[in-house]
């Protein structure tokens, strides 16, 4: 609260300290929304600029971290809302690595836990591609609840939504993500079938 007060009174070093202290959290949170580093940085910067202008509204009743999380959520949701989304992910959007990862998982290698770091990044990228096709709200609840095991209350605090809204949003988001993955797998199968057929005719 003291730092916030000092920064509000125009103390630049106090505000720099706030940025230093909370930027890891803001970056981690913004990374849920964007796959490109440049966008995460842009979002994080915007969060702190907004925080500076709204320091007067920070009463100190909650934590500074929670207050900044709320600003981060709103900023990232607004940025995503203004960006155009493509309606569906097609099989052609997948890289060779992503196809291999899916093949391995579908072949039953799901239980194997010693994956290389590279494989994890492939999966993370693939998740990002699927999430890009969902609404910003779906993306938020899925990454928080299913990705980071956040509770309904955590999501409610970060977004300002009621707990029942969070539950409904999560339920629908899971269905939409599952359906998107199902469709992607079906398209992949179809594409492979067509490739095999064209190879057979040659």
């Amino acid at each position, binding site marked *: 609260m003291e730092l916030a007060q000092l920064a509000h009174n125009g103390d630049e070093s106090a505000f720099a300290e706030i940025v230093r202290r909370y930027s890891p959290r803001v970056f981690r949170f913004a990374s849920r929304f964007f796959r490109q580093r440049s966008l995460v940085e842009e979002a994080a910067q915007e969060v702190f600029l907004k925080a500076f202008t709204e320091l007067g509204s920070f009463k100190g009743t909650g934590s500074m971290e929670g207050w900044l999380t709320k600003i981060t959520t709103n900023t990232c949701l607004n940025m995503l809302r203004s960006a155009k989304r493509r309606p569906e992910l097609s099989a052609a959007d997948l890289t060779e690595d992503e196809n291999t990862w899916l093949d391995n998982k579908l072949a039953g290698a799901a239980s194997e836990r010693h994956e290389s770091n590279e494989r994890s*990044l492939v999966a993370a990228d693939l998740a990002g591609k699927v999430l890009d096709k969902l609404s910003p709200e779906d993306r938020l609840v899925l990454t928080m609840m299913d990705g980071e095991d956040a509770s309904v209350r955590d999501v409610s605090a970060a977004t300002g939504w009621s707990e029942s809204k969070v539950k409904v949003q999560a339920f629908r988001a899971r269905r939409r993500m599952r359906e998107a993955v199902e469709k992607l797998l079906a398209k992949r199968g179809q594409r492979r079938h067509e490739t095999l057929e064209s190879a057979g005719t040659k």
Partner: protein
Amino acid sequence: MNDKHILDLLEHAPLANLSQVDRERIEVHSKECETCQRAFEAAKLSAMMLKEHSLDTFAAPPFFETRVLATLRERAAGKDVWAFGRMWRAAGALVSSMAATVALLAVLSLALPVAQTSTSSTVISANSYSAEDMMLNSVDVSDDQSSDAQVLRTLYETEEEAAK
């Protein structure tokens, strides 16, 4: 167990939070139902992808706070420019309104005396018995008087002739 129930179970909570009993029920049913098997596979893949996605985060670049502060100063300077612009526009409005008032007053002061003169001359011309008219057209007045005398004379002459 029907298909709908399986799908509800998949969507009710994160897959990792499903109870062992529910998970077994889904697995048993999925072996018999192709639709549910596809849904379950997709749900498992989604859960795995989301876990990996949550681990893949970006860290703040070095000197991030310096950049934020620089942007903050830039925006503040930009705001100053905007404030000056607003002041300039407000001053411009004031100056134009003042200029308009001066122009209006000039028009009024130049045009009004002319209008008054023309009005008074119109009134004079309309009223032939005004003092100015009497003074300016004194010759006409004497003409009028002589003609009256002539009229009277003619009248008397007529009466005298009648008496004869």
